[in-house]
């Protein structure tokens, strides 16, 4: 009896101990362990994977609508718009809906009517619309990409009036190029997605495109808006505007010039020209021919290219690439004699020649056993330094180069930036092609010295040539002066610090003197512009051994303080135009014409010599009512010639009328008692005539003449190269016909 409770209590104690121990373990497991485990899991989700999961949350919880940004505008340096974006609307069909609508009884329109009307409004073929309407599974068939707004409005009115469901318009942006072809190679164009593909449009895509805006709305799991409003706006940021260094007027004159030149000489491979601000490297104009219409960039413009495709000699794609090519920087060429400017500069700078250096040319020179001919096979004889430049004497320049030595010469080519891209802010610039320095032999040096056997781009060459004449400063050419936002705040401004000084101011002055002499008395005389001191250098380069040539002319003005520098090249002109194929004969006249147009426009004051002053434009005095004698005296005082018709004593009429501005030395017709004839005068044929014959022919026709180009009228070989009005045109009496004079005998 006494044993039992004791045993019992023992048992109870043990049972209790077990319960206590196990409960305690359980307490730790469920009260601590479990929650530590959960904490780790939540930490992983809420801290480590927070961003990933939040992104998923935002993705599904929000609905965002894009707001298109307007692409930036491209201006020339005077604020003229070269490229601008405008609203346009894309018209698309939902054939599926249209089909369903057609099946409904209440539909008032017919399929035929819809097709006919849309084709009429949009100017597209009915067939293409019909074809798209047959795709009845589709809900999106574009029938007109980026229709102009007035067209879009017509479509809208039509579908609203007829209650058509299934034809839709979406707002889009369209790029317009107001000047069509002007500066097409520089501006470039955008693709269907409004992303730049070529030129500045591609190069400055990041600046121009702007930032697409967003409207973010919260939505619930069922796809409708959330109970409480949650909307966030990310404003679309319009693209920034580009302000170019380009001047559309200068560009226009340059394009006109090279186009006429390339057509006249039937250039096989087009032509290109670059006009730089000689002191900063700013590109005032850069043209390439053939060109194209930016608003319709895939259509071939040039007859040559079109014919090649039509004759199946070339694919459309290849020819498109060709018309989009900016020859001034995408292509390299052997520069020929215009390169002599660099040889001259380096030799003068290094002191291996000076202004008193003379050279005797015997017609050829032998280097490393190879004989190199001069352009004048009989030799130029004894020449001063200036004359070697004026004659473009190859043996002389080979000698200058050899005096410099291989290393120095190579170093100068590097310093002039020819071994690298010029750095112009346009895409696709090619790099010059040169011999490796360790393989650069004496013979190579001899050829390099007059600009053969290596390739450069026109843009890199003209930048180097600018350095030769502007005091020695090499500038990277540039097209974009500044980038600014819509309010005009400047975001980027070009810094025109020179890359380096290659030659000294003194050397540069000597180079200018030589080059002015080339134009006033040498192969560059066709590049003269009345009233301006022009420096320049001609170039005629062989394209390998093919017999084809590249002709070019480099000029700058004013010669004593260059403001603008221009290089024009023409690739593979025809040899059968009757003009001796050389830069001096083919390109210099065009250069002269372009310079005579852009120099006054750019505000560079002409300085006429006494002789030129007489030929300069003068205001005609009003002499009607005066006695003939008195009138003649007045005209003479102003330097005009006169011709009197009728035998009255008083002037009853005059041509041109008083206060007209006409070239000096022109003939004013006085009518004394005779009526001024009504009607128009016929422009005579002038090309090929001497200046005197041309003057007589124009005056006889009752018109006035203005001479342009070389003023060296004493040379017997000066002829009219072109005339501003075509033969046979009818013009009022007193109209001024401008003729370009040129010396047809020059050879480079």
């Amino acid at each position, binding site marked *: 009896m006494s044993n039992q409770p004791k045993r019992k209590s023992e048992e109870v104690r043990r*049972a209790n101990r077990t319960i206590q121990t196990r*409960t305690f373990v359980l307490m730790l497991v469920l009260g601590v362990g479990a929650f530590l485990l959960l904490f780790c*899991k939540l930490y992983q989700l809420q801290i480590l994977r927070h961003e990933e999961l939040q992104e*998923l949350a935002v993705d599904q919880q929000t609905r965002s609508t894009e707001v298109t940004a307007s692409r930036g505008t491209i201006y020339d340096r005077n604020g003229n718009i070269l490229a601008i974006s405008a609203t346009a609307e894309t018209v698309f069909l939902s054939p599926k809906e249209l089909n369903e609508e057609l099946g409904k009884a209440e539909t008032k329109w017919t399929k035929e009517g819809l097709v006919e009307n849309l084709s009429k409004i949009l100017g597209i073929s009915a067939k293409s619309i019909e074809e798209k309407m047959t795709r009845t599974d589709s809900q999106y068939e574009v029938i007109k990409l980026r229709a102009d707004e007035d067209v879009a409005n017509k479509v809208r009115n039509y579908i609203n009036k007829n209650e058509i469901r299934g034809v839709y318009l979406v707002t889009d942006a369209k790029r317009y190029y107001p000047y069509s072809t002007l500066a097409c190679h520089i501006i470039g164009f955008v693709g269907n997605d409004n992303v730049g593909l070529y030129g500045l449009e591609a190069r400055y895509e990041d600046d121009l495109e702007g930032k697409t805006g967003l409207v973010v709305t919260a939505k619930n*799991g069922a796809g409708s808006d959330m109970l409480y409003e949650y909307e966030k706006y990310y404003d679309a940021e319009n693209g920034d505007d580009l302000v170019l260094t380009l001047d559309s007027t200068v560009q226009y004159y340059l394009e006109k010039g090279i186009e006429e030149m390339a057509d006249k000489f039937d250039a096989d491979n087009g032509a290109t020209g670059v006009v730089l601000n000689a002191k900063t490297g700013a590109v005032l104009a850069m043209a390439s021919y053939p060109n194209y219409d930016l608003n319709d960039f895939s259509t071939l413009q040039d007859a040559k290219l079109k014919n090649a495709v039509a004759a199946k000699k070339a694919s459309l794609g290849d020819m498109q690439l060709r018309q989009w090519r900016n020859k001034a920087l995408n292509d390299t060429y052997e520069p020929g004699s215009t390169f002599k400017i660099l040889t001259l500069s380096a030799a003068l700078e290094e002191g291996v020649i000076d202004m008193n250096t003379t050279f005797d040319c015997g017609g050829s020179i032998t280097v490393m056993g190879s004989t190199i001919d001069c352009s004048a096979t009989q030799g130029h004889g004894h020449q001063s330094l200036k004359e070697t430049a004026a004659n473009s004497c190859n043996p002389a320049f080979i000698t200058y180069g050899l005096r410099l030595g291989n290393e120095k010469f190579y170093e100068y080519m590097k310093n002039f930036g020819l071994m690298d891209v010029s750095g112009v802010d346009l895409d696709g610039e090619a790099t010059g092609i040169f011999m490796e320095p360790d393989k650069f032999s004496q013979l190579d040096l001899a050829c390099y010295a007059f600009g053969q056997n290596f390739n450069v781009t026109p843009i890199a060459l003209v930048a180097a040539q600018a350095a030769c004449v502007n005091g020695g400063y090499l500038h990277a050419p540039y097209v974009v002066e500044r980038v600014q936002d819509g309010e005009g705040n400047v975001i980027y401004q070009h810094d025109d610090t020179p890359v380096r000084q290659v030659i000294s101011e003194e050397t540069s002055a000597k180079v200018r003197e030589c080059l002015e002499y080339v134009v006033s008395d040498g192969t560059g005389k066709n590049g003269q512009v009345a009233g301006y001191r022009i420096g320049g250098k001609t170039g005629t380069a062989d394209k390998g051994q093919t017999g084809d040539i590249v002709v070019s002319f480099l000029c700058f003005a004013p010669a004593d303080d260059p403001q603008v520098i221009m290089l024009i090249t023409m690739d593979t002109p025809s040899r059968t135009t009757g003009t001796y194929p050389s830069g001096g004969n083919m390109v210099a006249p065009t250069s002269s014409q372009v310079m005579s147009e852009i120099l006054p426009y750019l505000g560079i004051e002409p300085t006429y010599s006494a002789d030129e002053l007489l030929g300069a434009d003068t205001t005609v005095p009003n002499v009607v009512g005066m006695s003939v004698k008195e009138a003649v005296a007045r005209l003479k005082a102003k330097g005009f010639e006169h011709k009197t018709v009728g035998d009255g004593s008083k002037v009853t009429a005059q041509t041109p009328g008083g206060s007209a501005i006409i070239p000096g030395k022109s003939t004013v017709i006085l009518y004394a008692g005779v009526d001024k004839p009504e009607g128009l005068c016929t422009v005579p044929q002038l090309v090929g005539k001497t200046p005197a014959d041309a003057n007589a022919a124009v005056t006889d026709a009752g018109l006035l003449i203005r001479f342009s180009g070389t003023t060296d009228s004493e040379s017997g070989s000066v002829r009219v190269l072109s005339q501003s009005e075509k033969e046979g045109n009818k013009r009022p009496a007193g109209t001024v016909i401008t003729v370009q004079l040129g010396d047809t005998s020059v050879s480079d």
Partner: protein
Amino acid sequence: MTRQEYHAKKARKEHARQVERKHREAAKGPMDLPFLLLTLLLTAIGLIMLFSASFPFAAYEDGDPTYYLKRQGIFAALGIAAMFVVSKINYQRWRGASRILMYTAFLLLILVIIPHNPIALTRNNATRWLGVGGFSFQPSEIAKLAVIVLFADSISKKRDKMRTLRYGILPYVGVLGVLSVLMLLEPHLSGTILIVGTGAVMMIVGGIPGWLVGTGIGGAGVAGVLFVKLAESGVIEYGSNRIAMWKDPWIDPLDEGFQMCQSLIAIGSGGLLGVGLGKSRQKFLYLPERHNDFIFSVVCEEMGLIGACLIMLLFALLILRGFWIALRARDRFGTLLVVGVTTHLGLQTFLNIAVVSGLVPATGISLPFFSYGGTALTLQLVEMGIVLSVSRQIPAPRAG
């Protein structure tokens, strides 16, 4: 009746009266204040979160954002009242009710699975509810309570016999087995896991042999891993989907994995500090069961890791305090009763949060005090009342 007998009877009566008085005296001790406060705090926070999680759906569906809050609030009030009443009852009285409770539970569970029973309700392909009019409840909730009370009563009487197969193991395994079969027929896997888990823990604490505990836990672990591996490799068809979605819900984010993905997005987007109370976006028809099983995902989204941890801390403290009471209970019955209730609470809390965070494969377990469900909340509070009633009888520490 002899005089002696009479005296003996009188003495027994007197003794019984004394015991009764002593019991009454003992049951008049103070309630455990920390446990009470934690319970009330969690109930209050649970109601706030339920409102936050449910108002968008309530507004869309019923036009009354407070629909769920009102209903849950009524049950919370009822539950708190019940908790206080239960806490006043001497828990020894549960001994008598244990068998009745268990029979009732059996009866109700059978009622649920009788085919075409008009009062059995089927939701989401599972018949777990009995309902009349607007009122419905899960018989499994009664079964849980019944198991806790029955096991506590029975185990507390067995002492060393718990070490035997015949008295300590088989009867309990038998009860749990029958209950499991009935509930799996509904089917109600999560409820079965909770009941079996709670029952098994009570057996362990009650003193079944140590080697059996080891083998049991080890065996369950091996079985679990084996099941996952087999389901993954496709040998077992049942649950293979669930396992695959647990491993990576993103392989089917729009259908099978939808709920899990939405829950992970909600939790993850909360980050450290959360999007702010009431500002969950996932509750706007994205996250399914946002006011039921997945309410904790909304908590995580709105309050962040810090808020979630604070709430988990409250749960942890409540559970720790529960076991603290169990360790100090006046007798084994009290200890086991509180162990059962607290284990049930702990298991359910852990499994719910583990499911919504993807720690364990998905199964429908609600979060105590938070998830919408009137009977569940009321019964939860009744269970808390039982713990409180045990706490009143904790002997005061002896001086010296």
